[in-house]
C-alpha cells in the first residue's frame, strides 16, 4: 500500500535561499521529488549559489521563474508551472505537496508518505465556501471575487483602497465563470496528481486563469476553488501548520517553540525564522523503525497563537502601560477585577472601615481618593505595589492609580468615598462593570455635626459638598452607567440600616459574622443644623423630603408659631 505513494514537492522560494536549500535537501533525502520555483526578483548570483548548494542533488527540477508579488496571480502562475514541470519530469508522482522555502518538515517524510497512503485518493486542502468564511483579514470575503484588483496591495495601498471604493460605488460585480463556487483556504496544500493534472489540464483553464488574474489573493482561492470541480474526496484541512496574525502576516517559529512543535505532530510548519538554528537542527525528527501514522494535533500551538493574537487585539483588561494606553471607552475592560466603593457609610458608621475589614475577605481601604493622604488599609507609608500615598502623585494620574492598585493586589479592593474626595474618577467608575458603588446620599453632612467650625464655614462647605454630590448623582443616574449602583437616601437608610447594610454586603466576599451593626454616629442636632442652613438661604437637599424624625414636625411647628 505504502509503495503506491510517490511524493512530489513544489517549493516556492523568495528570500533566504540558504534555508530553502536546506529544506529542499530534507525533502529530497526523504525520498520526495522536488521542484523549486525561485522568485525572479532573486539575483542571478543568489540563484547560482542555490544551484551550487544543491549540485549533488541532480533530480531537482527548477521551474521557469516568475516575479512574485504577495496577493497577486503571479504566485499561482509560479505554482502551476512548477507543478507542471514536476509532473512532466516525474509522471510516477502520485501526490504533490506545496511548500515554501520557509516550511520546515517536522516529521520524517516517510511518515507523511505513510499517512497519505492510508487514503491515497484524498486531497488535503483547506477549502471553505467564501460565503461562510469569517476569518479573512481585511474584511474582503466575497468581494475578492466580485471586484477587480489590478494593483498591488502592499506597494500601492492608497490606489488599491481608492479602486475598491470606486468599484463599490459604481456597483461593479464580476460574473464568476459558470460552475465555480468560490472557496478560500490556506495556500499550502497536498493534492493527488490526478486532481492536480485535472486542474492544470482543464479545458476551461484559460477562462479560469483570466478570472483569477484580477481577483484578490488568488493563491488562497485558485486551487481551493478548482479542487471542488475535480476532486473525489477532500479533507478540508491543511497539513502545514501555518498561522497568521491579525494583519495577515505569518507567524514566525523560534527555537523555544521546538517542544510545542514536536507535540503538535504536524508534518510541516511555517514559517521558521531563518536563524533558528536549533529548530533547523532538531527537525525533522529522525524516523522511527515503524512509520508513525498519527494525524497532526496542532491544537495546543494554535491555542498559543490565538491567545497572543487576542492579547494584541484586546490586551489585558485594566492594564495601562508603555505599549497599551487605550483611549477612553476603548479599554476592553477598564479595570482588571471587581471592586467596591462605599460612599457615606463611613459617615454614618465612624468605624465602618475596621468593621468591614473584619468580616470580608478583601482589602478595605479608607478614603483612597481623600484630600489629605491616600488612606490605604492599615495606613502604610507605601501602598500595595509601592504606590505612593501622596495625593499629588495620585491626582497626577488618578485612573492609573486606581487601575494599578486593582491589578497589583490579589484580593478584592474596597474603599470609602465621599464628595470631599477627588471626583475625577466618577465617570470612569460609573462606566466600569467591575465597580460596585453603594451610596448613602447626604451622609457627608453628618461629620459636620461634630465639628466646631463657625456656621458660615459650615454653610460654605455644605454648599460645595452638596454640589459635588449632585454632580456625582447625575453621573450615577445617566444611561451610560455600567457599574452596579445602589443609591439610598440618608433618611431611607436610617429607617432600616441593618437591611440596607446587608444588601450592600451581598456583592462582597463576606466570611465572618456580622450580627452586630457597627457603632452609629450620634445624629443629635441634625434637624437643627438643617433648619439653620435653610434659613441662611441654602436649600439642603436632605430636607426636601424631611427626615422622618419626630423632632422635625415639632420644630417646624414652633417655627411657624
Amino acid at each position: 500500500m505504502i509503495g503506491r505513494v510517490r511524493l512530489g514537492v513544489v517549493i516556492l522560494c523568495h528570500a533566504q535561499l540558504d534555508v530553502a536549500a536546506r529544506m529542499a535537501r530534507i525533502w529530497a533525502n526523504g525520498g520526495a521529488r522536488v521542484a523549486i520555483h525561485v522568485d525572479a526578483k532573486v539575483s542571478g548570483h543568489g540563484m547560482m549559489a542555490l544551484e551550487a548548494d544543491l549540485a549533488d542533488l541532480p533530480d531537482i527540477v527548477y521551474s521557469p521563474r516568475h516575479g512574485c508579488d504577495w496577493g497577486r496571480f503571479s504566485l499561482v502562475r509560479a505554482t502551476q508551472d512548477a507543478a507542471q514541470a514536476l509532473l512532466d519530469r516525474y509522471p510516477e508522482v502520485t501526490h504533490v505537496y506545496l511548500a515554501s522555502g520557509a516550511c520546515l518538515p517536522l516529521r520524517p517524510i516517510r511518515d507523511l508518505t505513510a499517512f497519505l497512503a492510508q487514503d491515497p485518493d484524498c486531497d488535503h486542502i483547506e477549502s471553505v465556501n467564501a460565503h461562510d468564511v469569517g476569518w479573512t483579514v481585511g474584511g474582503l470575503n466575497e468581494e475578492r471575487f466580485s471586484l477587480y484588483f489590478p494593483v498591488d496591495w502592499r506597494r500601492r495601498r492608497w490606489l488599491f483602497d481608492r479602486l475598491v471604493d470606486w468599484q463599490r460605488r459604481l456597483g461593479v460585480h464580476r460574473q464568476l465563470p459558470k460552475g465555480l463556487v468560490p472557496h478560500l483556504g490556506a495556500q499550502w496544500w497536498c493534492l493527488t496528481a490526478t486532481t492536480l493534472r485535472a486542474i492544470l489540464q482543464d479545458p476551461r483553464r484559460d477562462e479560469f486563469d483570466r478570472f483569477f488574474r484580477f481577483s484578490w489573493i488568488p493563491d488562497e482561492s485558485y486551487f481551493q476553488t478548482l479542487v471542488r470541480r475535480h476532486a473525489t474526496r477532500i479533507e478540508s484541512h491543511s497539513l502545514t501548520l501555518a498561522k497568521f496574525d491579525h494583519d495577515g502576516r505569518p507567524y514566525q517559529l523560534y527555537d523555544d517553540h521546538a517542544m510545542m512543535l514536536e507535540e503538535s505532530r504536524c508534518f510541516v510548519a511555517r514559517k521558521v525564522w531563518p536563524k533558528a538554528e536549533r529548530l533547523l537542527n532538531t527537525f525533522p525528527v529522525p524516523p522511527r523503525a515503524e512509520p508513525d501514522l498519527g494525524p497532526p494535533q496542532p491544537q495546543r500551538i494554535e491555542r498559543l497563537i490565538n491567545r497572543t493574537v487576542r492579547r494584541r487585539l484586546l490586551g489585558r483588561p485594566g492594564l495601562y502601560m508603555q505599549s497599551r494606553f487605550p483611549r477612553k471607552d476603548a479599554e476592553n475592560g477598564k479595570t482588571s477585577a471587581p471592586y467596591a466603593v462605599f460612599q457615606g457609610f463611613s459617615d454614618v458608621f465612624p468605624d465602618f472601615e475596621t468593621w468591614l475589614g473584619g468580616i470580608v475577605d478583601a482589602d478595605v481601604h479608607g478614603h483612597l481618593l481623600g484630600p489629605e493622604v491616600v488612606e490605604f488599609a492599615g495606613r502604610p507609608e507605601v501602598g500595595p505595589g509601592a504606590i505612593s500615598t501622596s495625593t499629588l502623585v495620585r491626582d497626577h494620574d488618578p485612573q492609573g492609580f486606581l487601575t494599578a492598585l486593582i491589578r497589583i493586589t490579589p484580593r478584592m479592593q474596597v474603599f470609602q468615598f465621599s464628595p470631599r474626595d477627588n471626583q475625577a474618577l466618577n465617570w470612569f467608575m460609573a462606566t466600569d462593570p467591575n465597580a460596585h458603588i453603594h451610596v448613602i446620599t447626604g451622609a457627608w453632612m453628618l461629620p459636620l455635626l461634630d465639628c466646631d467650625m463657625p456656621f458660615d464655614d459650615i454653610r460654605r462647605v455644605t454648599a460645595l459638598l452638596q454640589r459635588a454630590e449632585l454632580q456625582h448623582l447625575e453621573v450615577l443616574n445617566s444611561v451610560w452607567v455600567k457599574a452596579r449602583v445602589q443609591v439610598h437616601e440618608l433618611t431611607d437608610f436610617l429607617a432600616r440600616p441593618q437591611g440596607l447594610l446587608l444588601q450592600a454586603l451581598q456583592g462582597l466576599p463576606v466570611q465572618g459574622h456580622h450580627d452586630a451593626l457597627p457603632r452609629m454616629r450620634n445624629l443629635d442636632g441634625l434637624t437643627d443644623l438643617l433648619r439653620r442652613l435653610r434659613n441662611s438661604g441654602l436649600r439642603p437637599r436632605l430636607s426636601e423630603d424631611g427626615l422622618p424624625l419626630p423632632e422635625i414636625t415639632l420644630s417646624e411647628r414652633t417655627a411657624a408659631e
Partner: protein
Amino acid sequence: MRHRLRSIIPDRLRRRSQRQYLIARAFNRRGALRAIADRTAQIRTPDILAFVTLRNERVRLPRFLDHHRRLGIDHFLIVDNDSDDGSGDYLAQQPDVSLWWTGASYKRSRFGMDWINRLLWKYGCDHWCLTVDPDEFLIYPHCDTRPLPALTDWLDASGRRSFPAMLLDMYPRGNIEDQPYAEGDDPFAIASWFDPANYTIRKNDFFGNLWIQGGPRTRTFFASDPLSGPALNKIPLVKWDRRYAYVSSTHMLLPRHLNLVYDEDGGERASGCLLHAKFLSTFADKSAEELDRRQHYANSKEYQAYHAGLRRGTNLWCSESRQYRDWRQLEDLGLISRGHWA
C-alpha cells in the same frame, strides 16, 4: 507672543522645523568628536548597532558590553566625554567598539544627544540602532531564548521602526553603599529589586509619546515634588533613517509616528524594559562628581536630590519591592508585553 505664534503655526510644521533644527545642530557638532578608534568599516548591512555616551564608567563597562554582545549587538559606537578613569583605553582595545572622544560640554550638547544624533545620522541609517546609557541593560520578551536579531526581524516583518523599553530602576535591599560593586559583577545580583506598580502615565499630544513617571526615585528623592521626577519612557531601539532625530534623551523622537509605540484601541503592542543599574555602590561617588560638574538635566536637580538623600544613608527598598526574576515576571506585572510576538 510666543503662545500666539504657537497657536497659529500648525503642529506638523512646528515638529518639522524642530526636527530639522535638531539634525542641523547634530551636524554642527561634528567637529566636537575626535575619532580614537574608528572600526566602522567593519559594519555590515544587517548589523545591529549600539550608540552610547559615557563618562567614567570603567567599572561597569565589561558587564554592559557583555550583556549587549550576548543579545546580538554587532558593533558599539561610543562617545567618551572626557573620562579620566581609563574607560577610553579599555574601549579602544575592544574589537567591536568604535570610539570617539570629546571634551565639549555635556549639557551644551543637549546632554550628549547632539553627538548621538550625529553618529546615528552618519552610521545608523537602515540599521536597527540601540541607544542606551552604560547603566541600561535591555530586556525584551523571550530575550532568554531569542536573540535581538529575532526581534528586529519580527519588527521589520510587522512594519515597525521603533520599539519601546521603559526604564526600570533597580536597587539593592538595604543601603546602596553596603554591597560594593566590583568590575565584572552582575549588577542585578546586587540591585535586584524594583517597584512593581507605581507608574503614572500621561500622553504628550504634541510628540505623541507617553510620559511615564514613578518608581523608586520619585518615591524617595522626589517625595516632596513628585511631579518633577525623572521620565521613564524610552524608545531606545529604532531602525534609523537620516530624517530621524532624538528630541530629549531617548524619551521621544521625531518624526512623531516613531513615538506611537502603544496601542490605543485596547490591544497590546510588544515592549521591553531597560533595567537601570544606577543604584550600586559606585553611585555615591558618581553623584558627588556630577553635582560638582553640574552638567545634568535641570541643573543636576536629580543628583542634588540623590545626594541629599544618600547622605542620610537612604535605601530605596521598601516592603512592596519585588525581586527581579525574568522577563516573564515583568510581563505578568504588566511592565512589558510580548504583543503578538508568540
